[in-house]
């Protein structure tokens, strides 16, 4: 959603409660158990949220999106069937059933860090990199607004599971994840809102990045120079 326009000002609620309805409380806590019961990893869960049809996504609140994602995943993983869910929604809930429930079980959560032989880092601090213009069909954590933009490696956070493959159970593909600094003007152009010197730091996996040869000037700088000298 980064950079989209038209959502209006940010509105802050005074003395905001943690949850705004009892169902939000239950939904929040349910999800952590349900995704474990279905052996769902965090990337897969995020992808299930992204798969909510856009119009519905925008019309739902945060916990409604969690609920929709967890329903989808439980059905897809065969933990429950759609018919069972619908039948339960139609039937009166028997409170006794909940009170007498048996203890939780389910597989352990998926480890989010690989164990052995961490891969070597391709980029060092200070290296100039470009965020690849990737537009995968599945899950990804490369924000749309950074694709194709140039930045500088600020920090190497170490090795993390790669969400693009992990979300689809296509391997954890462990690799370095970096904090990459992007100048506001590189991301947003010469807008009055983008102040030169302000930066956005984005955490990006190695597969999202490509090197920029050290002798080539950054695109933005070249353009600016051409503009100032009147050449082109």
């Amino acid at each position: 959603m980064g950079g989209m326009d038209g959502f209006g000002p940010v509105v802050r609620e005074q003395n905001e409660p943690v949850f705004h309805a009892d169902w939000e409380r239950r939904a929040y806590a349910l999800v952590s158990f349900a995704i474990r019961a279905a052996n769902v990893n965090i990337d897969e869960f995020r992808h299930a949220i992204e798969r909510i049809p856009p119009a519905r996504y925008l019309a739902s609140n945060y916990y409604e999106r969690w609920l929709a994602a967890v329903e989808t995943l439980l059905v897809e993983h065969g933990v429950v069937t759609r018919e069972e869910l619908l039948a339960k929604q139609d039937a009166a809930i028997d409170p006794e059933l909940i009170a007498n429930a048996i203890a939780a079980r389910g597989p352990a959560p998926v480890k989010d860090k690989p164990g052995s032989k961490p891969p070597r880092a391709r980029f060092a601090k200070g290296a100039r990199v470009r965020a690849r213009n990737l537009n995968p069909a599945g899950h990804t954590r490369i924000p749309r607004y950074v694709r194709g933009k140039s930045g500088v490696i600020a920090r190497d956070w170490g090795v993390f599971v790669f969400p693009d493959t992990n979300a689809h159970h296509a391997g954890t593909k462990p690799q370095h994840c970096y904090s990459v600094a992007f100048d506001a003007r590189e991301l947003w152009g010469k807008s009055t809102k983008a102040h030169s010197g302000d930066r956005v730091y984005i955490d990006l996996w190695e597969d999202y990045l490509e090197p920029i040869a050290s002798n080539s000037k950054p695109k933005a700088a070249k353009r600016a120079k051409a503009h100032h000298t009147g050449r082109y």
Partner: protein
Amino acid sequence: MSDHHNTDDSGPAARVKALEALLTEKGLIDPGAIDAIVDTYETRVGPRNGARVVAKAWTDPAYRKRLIADATSAVAELGFAGPEGGHLVAVENTERVHNLVVCTLCSCYPWPVLGLPPVWYKSFAYRSRAVSDPRGVLEDFGLELPREVEVRVWDSSAEIRYLVIPQRPKGTARMSEDELAAIVTRDSMVGVAKVEAPRA
């Protein structure tokens, strides 16, 4: 029409009830554990945790150093850890630098130190504009920054969760760590507000 009937047609309250009952029936969840999680995030884990971290960093230079070097460990020293807190990073506001945290992709937030995110943090308005117009967003919160202050926006696009260490306000030199913790607000630790000294 019944063929249009799907799980999305019912209100969220009914759907959550059905889901909880079904999973309970199948022995996959324990409602007692659900209650425990709700209680934890509603009454025990919240921005007071982060405020204690900040107040300690303000009063204990060695702790501040450890916090900046490795926030996950420094936060754990105070007993705070858990989901969404495995990779914490503290970023410090100064006279020259103002940090602001967002998650444009979803609503990632450092739960062990700040609790669950407020609605504004999860709003499309914040998620969309915090990166493209951070100074405008800060003005929505009543905070106008001088031009010469560098704004650093941290988009929590991976597993790192950020905690802003706000600037310690002037006139608080004689306050104790506990007193300081009481004036540190959630908003200041996300970077949308400054901490104000209490009025004398």
